């Protein structure tokens, strides 16, 4: 009994039977997943497979049609928006702000769930903003206009905002999308260094293999595979989900799974049978 209780305590997020649809057909169907404290969990799948939709149901941009989402053992739907914002930090895809804000003002917005109606910014708020900017190596950009940052700098500012939010569970919705490779690695390294719990929708399979402890694979709104990167990323599975041929090996330097995609043309030339 004691060990079971211990197991529940370490569980940060537990989802059962989550279903949601934008229109007539279910966009995500009967999703079940869990994230334990300290884990880096990846959501993988082709475009339109429902990765973002799952995340949006968790961070409440969408309301589930059915199913249960438990956050730290509490029913999320019964929780106030402010309370869930104190636990969950979100880095989404829409990070353009059509108005003029300084970088430090954007980061300071992470403090708002800590603020009641009449609160003004205190010393701790200012400290957290400075701390977050330093962690992201952005001290020098605090007074720059957010609108004029590059894509990678914007993404770093948004992660600084989540750090300022002081929550230890990050939901990342393809945070490195459209970024140069150096920024992609930088973003994930910075998040990893924070030692927080992470649930991330990811596009790049190699990136997922490098950073994730466990992976869920979504296809057409359903979870069809789950496990460690080693278990999930086999050439057969990759072909089933993405429809491409690949070669999978453990990379000698990283010690992680490394996937090489094989174009159909090359395969035809060598005559190798996949």
């Amino acid at each position, binding site marked *: 009994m004691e060990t079971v209780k211990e197991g529940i305590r370490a569980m940060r997020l537990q989802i059962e039977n989550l279903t949601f649809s934008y229109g007539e057909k279910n966009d995500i169907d009967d999703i079940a997943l869990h994230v334990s404290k300290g884990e880096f969990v990846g959501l993988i799948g082709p475009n339109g497979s429902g990765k973002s939709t799952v995340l949006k149901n968790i961070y409440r941009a969408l309301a589930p049609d059915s199913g249960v989402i438990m956050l730290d053992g509490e029913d999320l739907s019964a929780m106030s*928006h402010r309370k869930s914002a104190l636990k969950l930090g*979100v880095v989404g895809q829409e990070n353009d702000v059509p108005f003029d*804000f300084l970088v430090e003002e954007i980061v300071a917005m992470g403090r*708002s*769930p800590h603020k009641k109606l009449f609160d003004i910014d205190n010393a701790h708020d200012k400290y957290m903003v400075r701390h977050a900017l330093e962690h992201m190596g952005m001290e020098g950009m605090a*007074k720059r206009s957010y609108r004029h940052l590059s894509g990678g700098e914007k993404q770093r500012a948004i992660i600084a905002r989540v750090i300022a939010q002081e929550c230890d569970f990050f939901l990342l919705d393809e945070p490195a999308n459209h970024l140069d490779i150096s920024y992609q690695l930088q973003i994930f390294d910075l998040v990893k260094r924070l030692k927080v719990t992470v649930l991330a929708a990811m596009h790049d399979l190699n990136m997922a293999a490098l950073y994730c402890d466990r992976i869920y694979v979504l296809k057409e709104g359903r979870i069809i595979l789950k496990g460690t990167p080693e278990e999930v990323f086999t050439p057969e599975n990759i072909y089933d989900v993405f429809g491409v041929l690949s070669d999978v090996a453990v990379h000698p330097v990283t010690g992680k799974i490394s996937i090489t995609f094989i174009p159909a043309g090359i395969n035809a030339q060598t005559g190798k049978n996949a």
Partner: protein
Amino acid sequence: MIFNRAETNMPVIILILVILSAATILFAVGIGPIPVSPDKVLKILASRIPGLRSIPRTWEQLDQNIVLGLRLPRVLLGMVVGASLAVTGVAMQALVRNDLADPFVLGVSSGASATATLGMIFGAFSFLGKYSLPVSAFIGAALTIVLVYTISRVRGRINITQLLLSGVAVSMFMDGVTRIITLSAPNALGLHNASFWMSGSLAGAKWEYLSLPLVILLVCMFVLMINYRGLNLLLLGDESAGALGVDVRRLQKLLVLVASLMAGLTVSVSGTIGFVGLMVPHFTRLLVGGDHRKVLPVSALAGGIFVVWTDVAARMLLAPEELPVGVLTAIIGGPVFIWMLKRNSGRWRQ
């Protein structure tokens, strides 16, 4: 430095604007076909303050009548209307997340015009006595908002695109109704009054028209100020705002309510004074950035000052004839809007 965007000095900016507002009231009251010097205005005003009645009476009764009876209510109404329009513009722009929105995008002014012309030309609301114009205009504004709001709800939340488009559709419908009413007008005087009012004018200012818009302005301003963090977060987009603890549906409803209350009430006392709610927030943001804690008070004061001086110009340009102030703001505002639009599209191209 005050105009340093990175280190905005709010107390100094607010102090300067308050002094400018006071000076605006003092000078604008004195300007007109019969000029009254600012020191005389000051004395007349001071003599009305209880405890200061001992001020020696060095002015003529005519001056006092002009200042207290005609010009002061008009100037004060200009301050209140200008502040309301600017603040409504700020709220509307946060709601639709676009700095090209103005207080009348949801069709408030068209709705108000329809019922107000009905009242002015056919006397449909004459049973309301001296309040018949503002009340009839407000009824139209409120009807429009309820209609637009109902159309734009999708799955229990406001769909911003539908909100804007149904605003356009309902405006056109209401404009059509107004056109029918004016075309079937039995007398030319009513028609002239109606078109003068529709153009946006402070000429009908009365002391009785002041208190309700002022109270509503203060209440709405208070509501918006305590929600300034939510307004800022709304500019990040619904999803980011929700993820940062904002109850987006609640805040959107609140903004629709606040914005339509202020816009409806403003139209009801002064007709449609266009572009103020667009230009003032824009130039305010250039000065202090996008943070609503700063944008709201600064644009309220700047909006008041702007409308009062434009109204002075409207009184004086063709004196003794008078232009509706809304005509002037439209003539200034149209080109400014196009400039903003071009500036924005240039920015997106980058």
